[in-house]
């Protein structure tokens, strides 16, 4: 993909724009080349571009002033949390202000009785759990990057995680949000009557406004959690096991799949003790009260054995933690093995798992590329990692074509392009694979209702007429991964 060309009329006004921002946020403007280098992209590493200028407000009033200025002066603006987006949601533009919310990182109010925590957008996902776990609660959505990613970014991307099968995505755990619009107005949104505007803000990828405060639901910590590992001699058997567990009316707290190549990579990386020689492994958590967990674990183990698995249960909390650390390390572990990697994020109906897994293996042969499978099996959210070497003639193109074919396959079997990473710039041009012109037009009209001039995060989510055909993937180029050790998906 070509990065959008910068608007020369905005570049020509750069000095004036920097001066205006310095007046609005005196201690929070980054405009020197070296300083801007730190903000030149997110975790979609194939694309880097220095922003026009970066502003780091500390208060919602400063955010409102910056947006009002941008709106009135017609300057594009790109919101950014921690910059961990895998789809380029926070990718800067040379002609746009980058507004970073990381300094707005206060926990405003913990309301245990109402199970609600009110935070500023720069608070990290994990910090919410840290603030309430001593009182027996936690915040359920847990994207693997939770030590770094912020709640503002989670809302923009409607982040998921390992436990969303049972506990929902960000949107299902969001109670209210305060949004600053491109006109600089501050609007409080909750779901107590009128249109559910809060519902469309979640997952809107920064195209509708900037969240400056949010109230999220916390959950009581489950009294019992048990973890099973089921090792399979064939990948389709594991897929069948997943489908049978869901069909059996069991809702595990988490159900994760890794294939042989991924298991080996993780073993080499952090030695969590996964079964040797298996073609695939399912890691399954059941949580809740003792009688329910015991019953679920017994039934899951029975189903897994019926599908030919060898089943083992984590014996203590340390082993549980090790098993999950291994799973969350899949991405950095794979990153050490291959010079380059593409990561996909489609979701499919769970019963299609055996068919899709088998078809992806055939495709890998056709394309002559290695790949591994790691995914949130419980909700059918696939994260195939395609391995290649950009230095070898044509491999990048083949890998991208393979990736696009995987996403087309997901849509073909009734699934979607992205389950949790977002569309961003990465899958933008694949949107017509899933949506008709009328479908996209309706979404774009909603965008216009919030931001008629198209100043908020331009170039994201919606394909433009002039864009060249792009593939849906995350590209890790020659090991140049930001936060290479950050757990992923």
């Amino acid at each position, binding site marked *: 993909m070509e990065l959008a060309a910068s608007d020369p009329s905005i570049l020509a006004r750069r000095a004036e724009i920097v001066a205006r921002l310095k007046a609005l946020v005196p201690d929070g403007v980054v405009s020197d080349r070296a300083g801007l280098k730190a903000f030149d992209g997110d975790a979609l590493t194939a694309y880097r571009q220095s922003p026009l200028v970066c502003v780091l407000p500390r208060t919602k009033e400063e955010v409102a002033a910056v947006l009002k200025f941008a709106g009135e002066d017609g300057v594009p603006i790109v919101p950014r949390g921690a910059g961990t987006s895998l789809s380029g949601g926070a990718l800067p533009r040379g002609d746009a202000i980058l507004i970073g919310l990381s300094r707005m990182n206060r926990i405003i109010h913990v309301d245990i009785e109402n199970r609600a925590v009110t935070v500023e957008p720069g608070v990290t996902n994990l910090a919410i759990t840290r603030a309430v776990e001593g009182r027996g609660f936690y915040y359920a959505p847990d994207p693997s990057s939770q030590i770094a990613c912020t709640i503002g970014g989670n809302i923009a991307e409607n982040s998921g995680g390992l436990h969303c099968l049972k506990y929902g995505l960000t949107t299902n755990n969001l109670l209210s949000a305060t949004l600053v619009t491109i006109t600089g107005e501050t609007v409080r949104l909750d779901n107590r009557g*009128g249109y559910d505007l809060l519902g469309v803000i979640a997952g809107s990828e920064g195209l509708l406004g900037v969240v400056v405060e949010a109230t999220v639901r916390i959950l009581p910590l489950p009294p019992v959690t048990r973890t099973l590992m089921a090792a399979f001699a064939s990948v389709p058997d594991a897929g069948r096991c997943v489908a049978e567990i869901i069909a059996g009316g069991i809702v595990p707290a988490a159900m994760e799949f890794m294939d042989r190549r991924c298991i080996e990579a993780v073993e080499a990386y952090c030695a969590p003790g996964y079964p040797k020689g298996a073609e695939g492994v399912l890691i399954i958590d059941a949580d809740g009260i003792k009688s329910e967990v015991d019953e679920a674990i017994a039934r899951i183990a029975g189903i897994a054995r019926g599908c030919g698995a060898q089943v083992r249960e984590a014996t203590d909390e340390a082993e549980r933690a090790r098993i999950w650390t291994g799973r969350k390390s899949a991405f950095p572990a794979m990153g050490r093995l291959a010079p380059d990697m593409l990561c996909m994020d489609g979701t499919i109906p769970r019963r299609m798992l055996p068919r899709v897994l088998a078809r992806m293996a055939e495709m890998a042969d056709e394309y002559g590329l290695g790949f591994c499978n790691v995914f949130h099996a419980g909700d059918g959210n696939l994260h195939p990692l395609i391995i290649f070497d950009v230095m070898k003639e044509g491999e990048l193109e083949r890998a991208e074509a393979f990736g696009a074919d995987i996403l087309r396959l997901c849509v073909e079997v009734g699934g979607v392009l992205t389950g949790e990473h977002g569309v961003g710039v990465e899958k933008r041009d694949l949107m017509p694979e899933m949506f008709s012109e009328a479908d996209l037009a309706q979404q774009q009209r909603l965008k216009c209702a919030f931001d008629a001039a198209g100043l908020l995060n331009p170039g994201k989510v919606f394909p433009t007429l002039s864009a060249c055909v792009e593939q849906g993937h995350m590209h890790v180029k020659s090991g140049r991964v930001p936060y290479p050790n950050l757990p992923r998906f």
Partner: protein
Amino acid sequence: MIVESEAEIVDAVRMARERRTALEIVGGGTRRAFGRPVECDAILDVSRLSGIVSYEPEELILTVKPGTPLVEIETLLSANGQRLGFDPQDWSALLGSTGTSTIGGAVSCSADGPAAIRHGRARDHLLGIRAVNGFGEAFKAGGRVVKNVTGFDLPKLVCGAMGTLCVLTELTFRVFPKPPETRCFALRNLVPSRGPGLLKRVWSSPLDATGLAYLPPEAAEHFAQIADCGYGAALVRIEGTAASLAEKSAMLRDIVPDGEPLDTGADPFRRIGSGEIFAGSLLDITRMVLEPAKPSPYDGYEPPLKEEDWSLWIADWAGQLIWRANTAGSSSGRAPVFDSGTTLVRASVETRMRSHVFPPEEPARAALTCAVKAAFDPLGLFNPGRMYKDV
């Protein structure tokens, strides 16, 4: 106009566009008395757009047409040991309507029931839609899988939108396994200042209660099994297998040390979610969702038993949803007792004409509401004025 397919709706809307005809969208017609009165030139009857499009029990996914009766969906799911998590309610008794309550109406009114405290509201379960917008274009949004962030989450917008944005033609839900057994308990002799607080303690425990309601004595009188509840009763519904119900019952006794929970036998929550105990009241009925993160307004507050503003009320969703029959509030022009979040569920046409029915919006939000309406239905063809004056 009676339509039977999406194509016919497209034709009907295009004709309405040309003639500038405002359409009242009607399914089973049981909720027409909810919302601001609309003045429409024609009725678009979508009740024949009915039936199950696809149901995959093993996938926990259900796709239906909007005119499908709630009863039909419930029967089908129940036969497969499943149900809709948001517990959609039939408000016919409350609204004094006849006809058949449909899924399209329940979603459009976000008629979420007591179990929503555990599983979430309609917006949390509607994964995808097909619909016809005010441009006369059929479109889809969302998907048919549980985890999806592809494009804007338009299905959320149609929940509770009172049919003012588009004409739904297909709805896809995630469904939930239905636990094999249910038990309901009453904790009696709880004054209103203590009841909701106790419910919140239960809600913060791992019981996963699918019903948490408080009834003052006047409301409890409507339930034979708890009529004699002293100063009021907190109701708790738990579900699971026999073994888990035994464990949960014991946990409940630990949370509520004083007074043995009374097993109510029959499930009282059906009649709580439907609002039917208010059916005989001559007063206006409101439903108020409290602020998500504010100390409960019950704290330190004990309504007098014969207080004029509080002739009959109940608190559902662990005290976060208040139903009440009120002499004050929007109909009389007096300020509501609590805060915003109030919806006038039942009142005369005259009252609904001159008062707010949905929570009044601050100017910046009202501007967004109007812009969103225009993004779907710029000519104001669908249920004009049903939510707000221009929406």
